[in-house]
Structure formats: C-alpha cells, structure tokens
C-alpha cells in the first residue's frame, strides 16, 4: 500500500501539452477516480504514475519516494489495461503465475497462490485453457487477478469496465469495490463515465484538457462544484447553466441572459454574484432536480415564466424543457402535471442556485 503525491506534473508531446501542472494527493488505501472527457489527459496521467510515460516537469512520489529512476519492472505497480493485454499465447494458469514466476518463487507456492486467486476471481474452471479462449468478462477478471496476485503497492485501472456488457458492468463495479477493500490497495481508476466514478470512488479528480478541475469526494463535487466545467460535467441530467450579463435596474440585480430572458437575482445567489466585487457577466446554475412548480416556497425563490416546449419520459420520471424567450430550462415534472405548450410558472430556489464567473468559470461566492 502506498500513498501517491503528484506534484505539479506536466507532460508534453512535442508542441502539445497533454497534462498541465497537475497536483494530487492520494492517500494510502484510497480509491480515486480520474474522471474526464476523452482526450483530457487522464490516461496519460496514469501512464506517468505507472512509469510507462516520462514526466516532462514535476514529480510523482510514492510514500515520499521518487521512483522515476527505477525501472518499470521494479516499481511493483499493478496495471489493468483497457484491452486487458492478456498473454494470449499462454494458458490462464500461466497468465496468473507470470508475475510470480519472474520473481523465481517456489513452484508449490505459486500453485497455491494461483489457485487461490483463480478461486477468488471465479475462473478456476478455466485454469488450464488458453487465455485467448476466454470471454470478455472472464478476460477482465483474469487481468485483474494477474495484477493482484503480485500484491502491488498500488493498482491502476484504465477504463476497465468500458468493454463489458451492461449487466456485467454493474456486477463488476460492486466486485471492484469489494476487492479494493479486501486487498486494501490504493486504487486509481480512469474513466469517462461519471456514474462509475461517483459510485466507486472515495475521491474524484476531474480533469479537462490536462488541467485538474476539482478534486474531492463525490458528494462535495456534486454539491459544491468549484467551477462551471465540473458543474456541467457532473449530474445527470446536466445542470442548467445560463450565461448572461449582470445589470442593475432600480436597485434590483438582474441577469440579462444572452438569449433574451431576464433572471432577477435574489438572496443567496445574488450575494454570490456580487461577492467577488465587480462581476460583469457570468453563468447562473441550477440543477433540474431543484426547480419546482406550484406555490412559491420562500421569498428568496426566483419566479420565472415559460412555455413547456418538450416533454421527455426518462424511466419513471418526466423531464420538461421550459422555454423562456430563447433560453431553455430543464426541470423534472414530478407531479406529471404539465402539458405541452402550456404557459407555466416555475421557481429557482436561490440557496440551491450557483453563480459562476464567465471568464474564469470559477464559482463565485465560495468561501
């Protein structure tokens, strides 16, 4: 088990900067997800931790030690590739035993450990068969078992569930969590799927275009996104983010939306927008779940009027697209009451609303 400190790491490929000034502090035994859209640099970051890629600037410390001059072979890092990289010319047994064989461990020891791991991963019945004959699901288990059997100090997984069918994916998600607790290893997990990250990780590092956007627990990230990107990325359906200019009109602060609508700012969200001094423009953020219909619940809640443009059914719930001028708000029609084309009033609770600076994207009013 090892803690990992990523200190101001930058990675350049010629003119292209894949990772810029990334710093993360991962504690022993933590399950950390590297989350972000394709090409954001999360796999590159993981490759640097593993030693597969060189670091252009900065350092990565393992329990305080810099391993950059150590050979990959000696780093004792477990790595599960996205396509598993199973040794297809060997049997399942030989795949599992590889890491132990190269350490010249006693044959009978190897046998005990291989069989135990095969049992743990439920692939004992496949031990003598060629690894190439396994199904995708079994291959994934083999890949994990092969890395786990050498008891590495940390475990790196590169989008390990993306190739699996949906049913098995849910099963493996649970399995991984159990395994992590059992082995007690520090686990770093690369994914572009936020649901996976939110359900598995102790901490999530959101990365976009090589930069760290936010690093915190799933709940923190959901409730207190540091910036517009995180707010937009996390949450399904996505948070409503309305961009506009701030204008004072008769001692009332309004957000003049680019699409024509006006949002009067009150309460918490008003002070959020003004807390950073003179902020000229920004984004107003409110999650669909927080928009409500019917009676106003608090004096600080903002009332908006709009037309029901689209109604979608998502499972048991209904999502309504509310059109205000040319701006769209997405909300949940909890009571199944709305009708298409209907003109309705809806409310944006100011405590739950968020303010984002237009230029920097940072959330305003954060202490």
């Amino acid at each position, binding site marked *: 088990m090892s803690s990992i400190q990523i200190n101001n790491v930058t990675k350049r490929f010629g003119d292209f900067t894949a990772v810029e000034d990334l710093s993360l502090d991962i504690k022993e035994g933590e399950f950390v997800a590297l989350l972000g859209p394709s090409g954001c640099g999360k796999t590159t970051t993981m490759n640097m931790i*593993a030693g*597969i890629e060189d670091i252009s600037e900065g350092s990565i410390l393992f329990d305080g030690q810099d391993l950059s001059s150590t050979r*990959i*072979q*000696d*780093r*004792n*890092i*477990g*790595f599960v*590739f996205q*396509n598993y*990289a*199973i*040794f*297809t*010319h*060997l049997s399942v047994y030989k795949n599992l035993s*590889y*890491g132990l*064989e*190269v*350490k010249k461990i006693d044959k009978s020891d190897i046998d005990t450990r291989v069989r135990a791991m095969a049992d743990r991963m439920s692939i004992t019945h496949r031990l003598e068969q060629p690894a190439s004959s396994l199904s995708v699901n079994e291959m994934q288990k083999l890949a994990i078992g*092969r*890395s786990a059997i*050498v008891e590495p100090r940390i475990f790196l997984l590169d989008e390990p569930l993306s190739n699996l069918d949906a049913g098995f994916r849910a099963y493996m998600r649970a399995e991984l969590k159990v395994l992590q607790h059992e082995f007690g290893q520090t686990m770093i997990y690369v994914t572009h799927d936020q649901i996976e990250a939110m359900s598995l990780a102790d901490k999530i590092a959101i990365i976009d275009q090589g930069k760290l956007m936010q690093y915190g627990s799933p709940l923190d990230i959901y409730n207190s996104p540091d910036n517009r990107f995180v707010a937009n990325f996390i949450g399904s359906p996505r948070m409503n983010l309305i961009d506009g200019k701030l204008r004072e009109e008769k001692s009332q602060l309004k957000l003049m939306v680019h699409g024509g609508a006006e949002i009067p700012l009150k309460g918490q969200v008003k002070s959020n927008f003004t807390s950073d001094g003179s902020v000229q423009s920004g984004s107003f953020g409110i999650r669909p779940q927080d928009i409500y219909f019917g009676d106003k619940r608090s004096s600080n809640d903002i009332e908006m009027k709009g037309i029901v443009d689209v109604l979608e059914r998502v499972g048991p719930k209904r999502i309504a697209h509310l059109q205000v001028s040319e701006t769209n708000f997405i909300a949940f029609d909890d009571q199944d009451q709305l009708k298409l084309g209907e003109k309705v009033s809806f409310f944006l609770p100011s405590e739950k609303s968020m303010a984002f600076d237009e230029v920097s994207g940072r959330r305003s009013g954060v202490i």
Partner: protein
Amino acid sequence: MTDITKQPENSTKKQGYWAGVARDGKKMGFWFILPTFLLLLFIVIFPLFMQLYLSVTWWTPLEGIPWYRAWEVFSWGDNYVFQFTDERVWGALWRTIIIMVIAVPAQFFLGMSLAYLFMDNFPGRKIFYSLMLTPMMIVPAVVGLMFYLLFQGTGPVNAHLGLPVTFSWLTDVNRAMISVIIADVWQWTPLMFLILLAGMLGVPSDQLMAAKLLGGSNWQNFLKIILPRMKAVIAIALVLRAVECFKIFDLVYIMTKGGPGVQTETISVFLYKMTFGEFEWSYVAALGLTILFVLSIIAAKGLAYIAKKDG
C-alpha cells in the same frame, strides 16, 4: 472528374472477341494466366521431359550428334546407378550440408541478436538499420570478389591479424571452407535480421508492457513472451535460408572455384564443373532429376507437417 465507368462517347459498343473477354471473368482470367502458363510449359515442363530423355543416355555435347538423336547412345539407368557410387557426389553433398549446418544457425543467432538490439528505439536507429541491411543487397558475385580480396595471403585480413603472408585462407585445405562460410554469414545475416525483427515487432506492445509491469526483466520477457510468439517467423526464416544456402554457388566459385581440389566443392559447384569442365551433360541431367526428386519429397513432407500443425 470523368466517370470512368461510362463508355467513352465516341466509341460504339465494341463487338468482337476481345470485348467479350473483357466482360467475362473466366475468359479474362484464362488470358491472364496464359503467359505464365506458356512460360512454365516452355521453360519448365518441356525441358523436364527432355532432361529425363537425356538422363538415360550417354549423350554429351561433345559426342558430335544433335541432342534429339541421343537415343543412339542409350544407357538406361547407368547414370543413375553411377550417382550412388560416385564419391564426388557424396563429397559435394556432404560439403554443402556442412556449410548449411554451420552458416544457417550462425546467421540465425547473429540475426536474432541484432534484432534484439534493434527492437527498442534509440537515436540513429533508422540509419544503422539501413546500414545493417546493405550486405544482402550486394550482388553475390561482388561479395565473392570482396572476400576474395580480403582473404588473399597478401590481403588485409592477414595484415590486420598479424599473420604472415604465407598464411593462406582460400587455398588451405581447412580454411577455404571457413572463408566461404564467413562470406555467406556476412552476406545473409541481414536477411535473418530483417525477418526476425519484423517478427519481433509484431508482438503486441501492450502485452510486453504488461509483462514488464508484472516485474519481468527484458530478458525474461524475451524468452517467455516474444520468442514463443515468433515460432512461425523463425521457421520461415530458417527454411528460406536453408533452401538458398543449399544452392550456394556465386560466392564459392568466385572465391575458391571449389578448391583447393574439391575442398569447397558444393553441389552447385560440382554440377557446374561437370557441365563446363567435363561436359558430362547426361550425367548432370540424371543428377539434376535425382536432386529434384529428393527435394520435392522433403518439401512435400514439410508442407504436410505444416498443414497438420495449423489444423
């Protein structure tokens, strides 16, 4: 951009035989294969029969009769019988095999080592790679010349090794063979290198990386991951080189003319001497057919073995 599928406007739909051929796959295929077929018939199949005919006679170009009257000097199977007791035949065969058995494995190990060296990238790799390939691109006769010059008593090898001018390579009973083998290894190791490296680089890189991450040293990974996956490539390289090595002529003839005496007389050199030295053409014809026969059987057995392996 003209639509090439449309007929050109100023041509009427061509009638006639060739237009029909153009539209009929089987007919066109027939015409396509015809040149090759004719070449094979004329230069391979017909000559084989002629060779069979000549091999059962005593005919040589010195007899004074044209070849089609070779029946006048019928000999039945005498040529064939003589082959088996001819010491020179066995000697040539033996020497050829010795060369093969030493040169081919040597080329294999050197080629494999070079391939291992060139597997990972390093500055200048491309240039050195091209350089390494050059020997096999040199005209074999010229390679023969080069080593002929090198191995002269008064040549650089002796000078650089501090050996006396009288120390002979090409005319010494033992060292002539070694000289020829060295020349062959110099010329053809690059071929082994080329093939084996291609095979090595065909091993999936992420599996190699996975092996490294599991703690396997470069050498261990080479033995357990790379080598097992190269079995087919290794077989191809060995077979190709063995077949060519059996035919070796240019190098030997130019360096030693098969000498001293018959010390470096390989099968091909022997046959050549029989042809233009002693003009025993019908004997060579018989020998040729025997060689054809034996090699065909070996090849057939080899193919059957491969077919079985592939399942």
